[in-house]
């Protein structure tokens, strides 16, 4: 039997997806099973994005429906942290206040069942290091739209070296002008051309 909720979410049918969540809750369905359907829907969205059927605005809409569904499930999910795939620390680096790329990354990673610590924008290197120390995250996502953010990315990676944590984290970089040349310059492990690429990277790292 096909999962109606997963399909509605994948089709970006906001009203019917949320109605299905509510109906299943009212019928006494296990909130974890409802969450599972939502994750399945988001995985379908990711596939459609990779297949160039969906684009960023569709990812944003899917992320919003997912958030609204989570709000309906609310406190019933609070106990759940063990089923997360991994922990990611994300932020826009020092000197750059652009947040849209970083926000999409956070939304999509959360929807892909990652525990994401969003440090916001204009984040100094030390704050990334402290966040990793405190949270035990194994992946760091650095975002930047300005070419001046390259230096900040480099400093951030160097701060992980200095703290003796470099071998314990994978660092991915992304944002407008970021490419392989930038990745090499800042000594990151990978660059992602978009938020979905970041999910793929995290899955590889966590799986491998």
């Amino acid at each position, binding site marked *: 039997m096909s999962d109606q909720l997963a399909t509605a979410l994948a089709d970006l049918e906001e009203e019917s997806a949320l109605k299905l969540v509510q109906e299943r809750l009212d019928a006494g369905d296990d909130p974890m099973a409802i969450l599972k359907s939502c994750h399945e829907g988001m995985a379908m969205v990711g596939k459609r994005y990779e297949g160039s059927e969906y684009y960023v605005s569709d990812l944003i809409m899917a992320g*919003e429906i997912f958030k609204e569904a989570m709000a309906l499930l609310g406190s019933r999910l609070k106990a759940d942290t063990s089923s997360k795939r991994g922990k990611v620390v994300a932020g826009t680096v020092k000197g750059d206040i652009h947040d849209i790329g970083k926000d999409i990354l956070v939304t999509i990673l959360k929807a892909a069942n990652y525990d994401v610590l969003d440090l916001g924008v204009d984040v100094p290197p030390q704050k990334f290091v402290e966040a990793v120390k405190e949270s035990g995250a194994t992946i760091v996502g650095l975002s930047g739209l*300005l*070419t001046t953010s390259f230096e900040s990315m480099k400093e951030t990676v160097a701060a992980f070296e200095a703290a003796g944590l470099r071998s314990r984290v994978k660092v991915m970089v992304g944002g407008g002008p970021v490419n392989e040349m930038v990745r090499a310059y800042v000594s990151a492990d990978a660059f992602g051309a978009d938020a979905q690429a970041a999910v793929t990277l995290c899955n590889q790292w966590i799986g491998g």
Partner: protein
Amino acid sequence: MATMTPRERIEAAIRCEKPDRVPISPILDFFCARYKGVMLEKFINDNDLGRELLIQIFDEFGGWDATYQSTTLNEFAFGLTLPMRMKVPGRELPPDMIWQFDEIPIIEVEDYDFAIAHGFLPLWGKLFPKMRPHQSPAQIPELIGAWNGQAIKDTQIWESRGVQCFTGVAISPPLDFFSMGRSLNEFSFDLHRRPEKVLAAMDAIIPGLIEAAVGGQKMISQATKWGFMTNFIGATRGSATFISPKMFEKFNWPYIKQIALGLLDAGITPLFHFDSDWTPLLEFFKDLPKGKCVLEMDSVTDIFKAKKVLAGHMCLMGDVPAALLTLGAPDQVTAYVKRLCEEVGDGGGYILSSGCSVPIDAKPANLRAMIEAGKRYGVYN
């Protein structure tokens, strides 16, 4: 050997013909300040200084075919195109930090109805206090008058040196206007939740947008010898980086086309300054008249693919990547420019430029390499 004037060279490229050499017109803004050791806080509020630095750099680096802008960027003028709030150095940011857009919703859902009822200029007036809370709407005529005066002065000074100003008046297609003003998230929801409302608002603002551009161009043409060679149409959010080709066809292309045809009707050349990825959308541009528009890319769009799709149909411009100018070495820049001249320049219809602005922290030697390689490898037999 040069057999054409810089103006003739660019005009030939726009017609998709072969000039004597690939014309060159890099975009220079904050780079001028950093290179000359001027704080950004001072730089963005002093247009005479901005133009003076641009002229100095033009001379120091051997000159090129048209200055992209007549001055460097002015905060007020830059902010006119998009309904967004800007954080600027010395006001919300440290005195030497590059300005940045603050992605907060300036346009509310209700404003779509306002746009439908009143059109572009009244909507812009309504949004002004939210875009620029430090200024009063009563100051608008004075601010615009001052900026127009500056644009005329800058253009006249360049013209007295025999240099054409490539572009000046700037507008954005309705999709970018609303996406920037609503914020990317809210606008993405709108595309799914209220598509008909969005389309009706776009229909309502398009005549005013075109009139504003034509009016600005007339003002500058009447007061100067050559005026601006093109009208800048800036867009990012309407690209395939953000929306699907299906959405593009419905929400963006019809309006881009109307703007282009409206400008062409008034004898103005449209310059599509289109950042982000337009690669899957290139076929659409064949729909516009041949040899009349310029498509300028920032290196995210595949300019080599653009050449394959649009050769002989539309002049292409770009796209030395920001990261290459900042992190690369001069010989890497030279190699890339050589490839651009050989492949994108093949048969004509190409203008060499930076992919969007030359970054503030570009290596000066890389800018020099770009200009020199263009002059060397861009020569047609």
